[in-house]
């Protein structure tokens, strides 16, 4: 009885202390690998944030690359370039794209809009795919042309045989592709629709194909941070779909993946992997974004829990029976790095160190102070499993003051010469990272 009467007082005290406390971010290195350090979840009046100001790269400025590599701008002046894709003839496709935009539901959404604009994330996408052609080795463009126009927030792409599949935010379109073609004007045939709708919060639809080409796999993000837009709009969201390539029939292959922004098959084991962006606003070191193998029928926690069975109290009603099944991801990338692209190296020539493993672009976010991510890393694989610590490959997107940002890495691709291409959607540039040739 006495305890009950004290509860309102306790609540008031907790409100006041929350206003005063500020969580300090720890070393991101504690959160790499299979068993990341997970602090207690906090709730804030004002979550820790740091919004870097977007400032254009000046002439001659470019990202920093690790020893033995060089970097050059392959194409500049693009409209919010995101996904990159290499066609068999060496042509590079650049997706100039951004989200379809969402309405403001709450006072907070107006503030979020201001934040995005400052950080250079509000750039209008071109809603098109641009083709780049160059002779391997020199990085001098011979051709830059619009390949497919009038798309609807496209993100995923995969070529199977002579059919090019493009994942708009609301549907997979199939285009007939003739090798060497530089422009497709046909409208494309809808293979299947994808969860989108009026509210389309995590809009990217990442895509890959199975080795035999019979199935497509599509990453579909949640429609909120943590169900604040209601459970109705989460129907069919935060999941990885398997789509039959011939019929378009689809089913949920795995679920609970909050925002699976890239899906790819590990070349050695043919195991499906994904990078997933985890939830925000419960601390600078929560929740680590991750790289994981994706099991058929697996549930990866969102929204009810994170990193296995750590319950998120912001979700109501809770689902203990689902939390009990939640799979721990394979490999933590540390918190708020926002991995957007997963690219297996397949024994390429950039450096012997990068022969077996995956490049991951970390777009970075503003949900942490100090900022984390804003780089391209490499994670080594042994026997089809991620091991060791990530190696930074391309950095220097942030200003030295850690308060300005020149670029943010998104799409990754390897060109036919083995150079790593990096799309930068703040600098509106595609960077080409290649090995320094002996004697140059």
């Amino acid at each position, binding site marked *: 009885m006495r305890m009950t009467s004290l509860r309102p007082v306790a609540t*008031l005290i907790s409100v006041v202390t929350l206003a005063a406390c500020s969580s300090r971010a720890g070393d991101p290195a504690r959160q790499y690998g299979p068993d990341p350090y997970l602090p207690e979840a906090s709730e804030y009046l004002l979550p820790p944030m740091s919004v870097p100001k977007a400032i254009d790269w000046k002439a001659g400025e470019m990202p920093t690359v690790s020893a033995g590599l060089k970097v050059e701008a392959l194409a500049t002046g693009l409209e919010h370039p995101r996904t990159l894709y290499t066609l068999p003839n060496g042509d590079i496709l650049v997706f100039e794209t951004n989200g379809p935009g969402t309405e403001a539901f709450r006072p907070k959404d107006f503030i979020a809009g201001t934040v995005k604009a400052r950080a250079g994330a509000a750039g209008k996408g071109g809603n098109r795919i641009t083709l780049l052609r160059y002779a391997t080795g020199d990085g001098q463009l011979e051709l830059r042309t619009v390949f497919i126009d009038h798309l609807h927030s496209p993100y995923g792409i995969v070529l199977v045989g002579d059919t090019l599949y493009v994942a708009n935010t609301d549907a997979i379109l199939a285009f007939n592709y003739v090798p060497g073609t530089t422009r497709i004007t046909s409208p494309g045939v809808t293979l299947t629709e994808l969860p989108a709708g009026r509210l389309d919060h995590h809009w990217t639809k990442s895509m890959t194909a199975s080795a035999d080409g019979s199935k497509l796999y599509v990453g579909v993000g949640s429609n909120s941070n943590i169900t604040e837009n209601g459970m109705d709009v989460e129907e069919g969201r935060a999941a990885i779909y398997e789509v039959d390539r011939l019929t378009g029939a689809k089913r949920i292959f795995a679920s609970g993946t909050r925002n699976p922004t890239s899906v790819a098959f590990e070349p050695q084991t043919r195991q499906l992997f994904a990078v997933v962006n985890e939830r925000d606003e419960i601390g600078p070191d929560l929740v680590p974004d991750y790289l994981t193998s994706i099991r058929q029928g697996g549930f990866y926690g969102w929204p009810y829990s994170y990193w296995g069975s750590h319950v998120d109290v912001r979700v109501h009603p809770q689902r203990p029976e689902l939390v009990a099944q939640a799979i721990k991801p394979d490999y933590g990338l540390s918190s708020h790095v926002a991995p957007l692209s997963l690219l297996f190296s397949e024994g390429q020539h950039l450096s012997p160190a990068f022969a077996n493993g995956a490049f991951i672009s970390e777009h970075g976010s503003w949900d942490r102070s100090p900022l984390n991510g804003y780089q391209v890393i490499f994670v080594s694989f042994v026997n089809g499993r991620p091991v060791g610590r990530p190696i930074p490959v391309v950095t220097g997107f942030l200003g030295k003051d850690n308060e300005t940002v020149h670029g943010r890495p998104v799409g990754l691709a390897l060109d036919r010469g083995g150079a790593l291409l990096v799309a930068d959607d703040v600098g509106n540039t595609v960077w080409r990272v290649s090995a320094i040739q002996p004697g140059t």
Partner: protein
Amino acid sequence: MLEQKSSENPASFNDLRVEQTRRSIRLSRSAAPLHRGFISAGAVLLIAAFGTDYIYYAAALWQWANFSAWLITAGLIVMLVAVLLLLIDLATGRAGRLNTISFILVAAAASLSLVNAFVHSRDAWTSVVPQGIFLSAVSTILLVIAGARGWTLTISRATGDRP
């Protein structure tokens, strides 16, 4: 007898009372405090947020939590206008000095609501339960008491009476 006395002494006690009351009525008509209507309007919005918080608590339907966030934001904006008008009232002599108790009630409710606006900016359940609905309940109690005292945060200049 009385008439005679008053004509003899026009500044008699009774006449003074009558004249003072007339002036007081005139003053209260022509120079009603500007802030009062805005205090009550802001309070209605903040009290309504307790209602929408309660429905969210009972039904867990997300839109009710959004209603609360908007009501608290709007309530605070109207209260900000009320504060500016209160300063004008005090500066121009449209109202007397502050009524300490009413002022503290409304100031406390507005301060808690400001904290509550941030609590409501969280995502999903904990934007309301438990801290958000607790703050809106306390604000509601304070504002209802202020309402029962007549919404005016000042003491009438003419009479010195409490409103």
